[in-house]
């Protein structure tokens, strides 16, 4: 531990000596406003979720307009990934992996729709539309009611059916990886 600390101190010292030249040579500082433009990721604790909200009812319309052509009217039967159903199939010979049967975090759903969907125009949905379509997909899976609504406070609190379905590979288990003696 102490030798590790010495090593870090050594590296820092070299970095400090060299940094005046390097810092100006490579790249330029990122301003907070610039970072905000690209800093879209959402963590499982809800960190990164924007202000706003959306209801299942609103989401049904957004889904019909932008999503159903690929995913089917009710989140299944389309040409792309099935989004609803599949609960109870994971241990069978024909597992059906959907948001309801497989995804461990509802926050991931918001993040993914926001960054990657709709496929032809990713990032085109507004914040409220993204919350709304997230709510609709959750309701299709029976995770929130048909009159439900989600926002940055409620989304991280939703317990997904397969939340405990994941076993980390021991080598990279986030709970243990950086807490070794």
């Amino acid at each position, binding site marked *: 531990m102490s030798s590790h600390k010495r090593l870090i101190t050594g590296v820092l010292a070299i970095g400090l000596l060299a940094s005046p030249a390097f810092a100006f040579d490579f790249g330029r500082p990122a301003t907070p406003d610039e970072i905000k433009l690209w800093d879209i990721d959402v963590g499982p604790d809800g960190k990164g979720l924007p202000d706003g909200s959306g209801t299942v009812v609103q989401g049904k319309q957004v889904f019909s307009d932008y999503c159903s052509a690929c995913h089917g009217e009710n989140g299944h039967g389309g040409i792309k990934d099935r989004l609803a159903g599949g609960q109870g199939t994971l241990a069978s010979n024909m597992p059906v992996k959907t948001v309801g049967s497989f995804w461990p975090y509802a926050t991931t759903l918001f993040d993914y729709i926001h960054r990657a969907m709709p496929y032809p125009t990713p990032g085109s949905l507004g914040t409220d539309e993204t919350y709304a379509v997230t709510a609709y997909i959750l309701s299709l899976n029976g995770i929130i009611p048909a009159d439900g609504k989600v926002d940055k406070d409620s989304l991280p609190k939703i317990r997904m059916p397969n939340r405990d379905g994941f076993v980390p*590979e021991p080598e990279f288990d986030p709970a243990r990886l950086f807490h070794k003696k």
Partner: protein
Amino acid sequence: MTSKTPIELLSRPANMSRRGFVGGLSAGILSVAATEAANAETLADVPDRGPGADLSAHSERSRFAKIDRIPEATPGKRNIDPSDAINSKTPHQKLVGNITPTDLHYERSHSGVPDIDPAQHRLLIHGMVGKPLIFSVDDLKRMPSISRVVFIECTGNGWENWKKADPDLTVQNTHGLVSTTEWTGVPLKFLIDLVAKDRGSTWMLAEGGDGAGVDRSIPLTDEIVNEAFVAYGQNGEPLRPAHGFPMRLVMPGFEGNLNIKWLRRLKFGNAPWMTRWETARYTQLLADGKARQFQLRMDTNSVITQPSGMMQIQPGYNRISGLAWSGHGKIAEVEISTDGGKTWTEAQLSLPVLSKAQVRFQMDWVWDGKPTTIVSRSTDEQGNVQPDRNSFIAAMGTNALFHYNAQQTWSIDEAGRVRNVLA
């Protein structure tokens, strides 16, 4: 373990006449670049010499060498319209040596290949850092660089054979989602020092500039901090767009999806972000319905490419050749069985044997004309042995979809037809 020194490629096997050996070699080379024209029976049939084509800005492959990748959409949907493809597989059965030609390196994208102008591309590094910085492509090219030969393997490689073996598959179908390139770029460690990463940051989010904004959480282990780099060069030239132009992350030994292409953001934090890619997608569903997560390293693997699926061999001399690789380090040994796994013989490795890079192995074999099966198994320097299919499936079930590294068996019938089988 016995460690045999790799021998030179063209040394003659001890038990063969020179004539037999040369004949065998010629047959192998012909199968690599099959010609359509009639063979020259005598030297008089060989076309006359004459002036050739004009020189060109960049050279093309011979029109007699038919070598193409195969676009594919999910396991079993092959030879489809490229607009429906999600990946394109390397034709290992037609390649020689250790390096994959750049235009034949396998390709996997999640929202097509973006057409990025490097003058407008930027890399943002922020999060738990002292100095968030923005870099241009030129900034990266001015930094100290490294070059390293590394395999990249789609975690879906081998997915054709999880549940059954279609006998009509080639090695391109079964194992075409791994390739090896010399990548050039800037060590991650150098960038970490530039932005003054917080010591408390243990995970990094890497995000692409593609339509899907593919992003993965990467644990900052010593190994990864020391070996990862941001590449802008590929086999001596700029990255091809399909492989991440103008810059990508290279993560030696780790699943392909972590090697984020069209890299535009690195964010430092202290926990994984649980992105779609590391929860809903690249996790391995086990037989009990639980899924293994953060199985990030590619295990030791190998496959015989010559002879392989849909080829035909003749009794007598055959040279068995293939590729072996491991995300744990160097390949230490490859063994080949030509009797269905009853006996094993150590193969020769073609130099250089590099850590986390594919290496070619080969062995002389005289086929007696009787039906049999051939199979290879690799062992890496950490002592990891490529599992046989039965023990692999016993551990993983048949639903995992990713990280298939069981031994690949080819059957050979009495007519010399080579076919894909499970064993």
